[in-house]
């Protein structure tokens, strides 16, 4: 277990370093960046940038400075939102994205596991075929189609739910979250349903299930004690890619529903070349992905002792 965590962290460091170097290079040399002189900067911003990046120092020292500032969480000023630092922008918008993502994954797991289990209990039956076809269709629906579609039907035509924006908080104004969370969760739920079904059907076909039946155990005991853990393996293996999918999907959903989350700032930043913001977001997302993959690996080790070499 410890060896696994160590190995993961060792792999993570070069990745993050890679991202840092790439972002530094991009900032200093990319066209239209803050140092090109292409765009007019307010003198205060210019002064802040020069202080932050030490433009008169040799390149190696500039990078060291950049590294140090990043490690202390200081990403410098945003180029687009003049009065804010990148750190402030992130701090304001991250909770929205995290809530959105968190709710979406809970919904996706609930729907996906339920559908997958029902389908797996009678493989080849009509419930199986219908649910799996539905799951395939749902995974093929891009969120920028479902999002607007849901907004169209439930927002404009039926008027049940608000089309965009955010209320005060999740608890007081939940209606703003319903469609975004559903649109974000659906593709992931579909993938989880297919994996859960495959996992459970495969687990139930294994030889040790016959031994469990030979022991005269009840169906419930067989499924829970003997089939559940191997069945969850493909679902857990998917959690890493699922996190990635949620991150990218969140970008779209936040844009479509005008939610003030991190993804929307990223898109704005990308279109407006707000490099400090872009790089900070990428770094953050990379760290989140690595964390998610690590959690998935640890869970995987618990589910299947054979992988714990």
């Amino acid at each position, binding site marked *: 277990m410890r060896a696994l965590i160590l*190995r993961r962290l060792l792999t993570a460091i070069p990745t993050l370093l890679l991202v840092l170097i790439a972002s530094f290079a991009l900032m200093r040399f990319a066209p239209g960046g803050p140092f090109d002189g292409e765009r007019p900067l307010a003198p205060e911003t210019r002064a802040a940038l020069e202080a932050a990046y030490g433009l008169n120092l040799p390149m190696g020292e500039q990078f060291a400075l950049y590294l140090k500032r990043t490690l202390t969480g200081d990403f410098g000023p945003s180029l687009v939102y003049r009065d804010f630092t990148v750190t402030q922008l992130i701090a304001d918008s991250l909770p929205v994205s995290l809530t959105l993502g968190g709710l979406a994954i809970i919904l996706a797991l609930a729907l996906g596991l339920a559908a997958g289990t029902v389908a797996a209990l009678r493989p080849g039956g009509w419930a199986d075929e219908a649910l799996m076809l539905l799951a395939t269709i749902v995974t093929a629906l891009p969120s920028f189609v479902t999002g607007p579609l849901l907004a169209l039907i439930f927002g404009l035509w039926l008027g049940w739910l608000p089309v965009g924006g955010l209320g005060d908080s999740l608890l007081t104004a939940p209606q703003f979250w319903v469609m975004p969370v559903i649109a974000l969760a659906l593709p992931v739920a579909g993938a989880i349903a297919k994996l859960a079904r495959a996992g459970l059907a495969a687990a139930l076909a294994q*030889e040790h299930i016959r*031994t469990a039946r030979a*022991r*005269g155990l009840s169906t419930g005991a067989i499924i829970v004690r003997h089939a559940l853990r191997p069945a969850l393996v493909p679902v857990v293996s998917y959690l890493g890619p699922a996190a990635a999918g949620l991150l990218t999907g969140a970008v779209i959903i936040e844009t479509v529903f005008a939610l003030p989350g991190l993804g929307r700032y990223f898109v704005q930043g990308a279109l407006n070349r707000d490099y400090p913001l872009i790089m900070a977001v990428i770094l953050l997302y990379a760290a989140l992905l690595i964390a998610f993959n690590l959690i998935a690996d640890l869970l995987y080790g618990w589910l299947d*002792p054979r992988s714990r070499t």
Partner: protein
Amino acid sequence: MTLYRLEGLSVTIGDRTLVRDVSLEIAPGECVALAGASGSGKSLTSLSPFGLSAGRIGGSAMLAGQQLAGLPEADLSRLRRAYVGFVFQQPLTALTPHLTAAQHLAECAMQAGGPRPDRAALCHMLEAVGLADPLVKLKRYPHQLSGGERQRLMIACAIAHRPKLLIADEPVSALDAHLRGEIMALLTRLRHETGMGLLLVSHDLASLEAHADRVLVMQGGQVVEAGGSATIARAPTHAYSRALWEATPSLRGPLPGDLPAPGAKLVEACGLTVRFAGAGLFARPVTAVDNVDLSVREGEAVALIGGSGSGKSTIGRAIAGLGPVSVGAVSWRGEPLKPHRTRDQRRWIQPVFQDPLASLDPRWRVSDIIAEPLVHLRPDLTAWGRAGLVKKALQLVDLDGALADATPMALSGGQAQRVAIARALVAEPQMLVLDEATSALDPLVGAQIVALLKRLQREQHIAMLVITHYLALAAQFCHRALVLDAGQIVEAGPIMELIAAPQAPMTQRLVAAS
């Protein structure tokens, strides 16, 4: 008072009747064995009455006075839970991998309604099946135990709830030869101690005489012969029973005395050691082969005998130039032979592997497969020349020329192994390395391959390095034998002497198991 009785049992799957008219009786403490090649219906006969296989049963199956035929699954489950224990063939796949030994045992002990066993009771259960260090083993997962230990655990689980009847479906077939005797002896001992009845399914006929009271020989779903085990073992009457017994060499049977005399020394390995890097980030290297000396002469057949993990395949690969050598030297007729072989060197030694279908590229045709060595090792030949040699090779192994255009999928196990042997022979090698060449085959088919090898030995004077775990098989046509244990040679010499007077404990176990 009969414990278990089958009368006119039939098993149907879909609209095919796979087992017909089987009758047997087991009294408490008795062992009845079902023998036969694979596909004879013995597993179906033993498992179907209890609802553990795909078939539906007809006829009568009575367990302690209760009729099993026609019972719904819930009732069958209740009966299994209370009265029957099951031991399956592959303990690695038959035991749930994410539960520890202790969890398995506890579940089985409680299945008939008994109380949760404490640590002392669990240790006692493991000791009863001959497992040492029970406290340590209780915390292990099935994949962390050795093959023999796993099967003992499976047996402990099967008897934990004190069943009246134990059904063992090929309990030793997946184990190494030297373990088989011990596990069978364990089952017999438990039977005598507890008065349990045992229905044994096996194709290891050698052990049946000692461990079963009565034997039923099955072929194609029907019983062709039944009687006391001693009678059937020594004097089988039905043609199929006789063929089955002859196909399974045992040391009790007659051994050939006239093997062709060997010539000059061909291959010699001195101080052969092979080490592999350990798995994982911080693991130490593993020594698979430790300081082994061996030699093979012209026309000689040398057996390399040991259990799985003993390093025999690694030695075979090193000699055939297919595997690494860490320390030591291999030489051919006195000249050194490096692991990376030249074209001419490859012609001298050719391999035959255990799994015939896996040793043929599934996408190639038989004629291309056999011709492949010629393409690379005999560049002087034209396509016409190659085709001629391929035809000769097919004849040499008794294969119909029409099979030349077939793909491996269309071949049976025996045919596939013949193709593999033809491929090995086509470049006219002087030595074959046979790595468990008959272990994956049906006993009858395996016997045919052994007959083929003996013929090749006589007619072509090919030397052979025969890697196997089956001592009795090696005794059929090998001159000398080396016994391997954990990478080291524990005993070596002419095979007759080894059998008559085994010195090392490993050799003694091998002889006893045969």
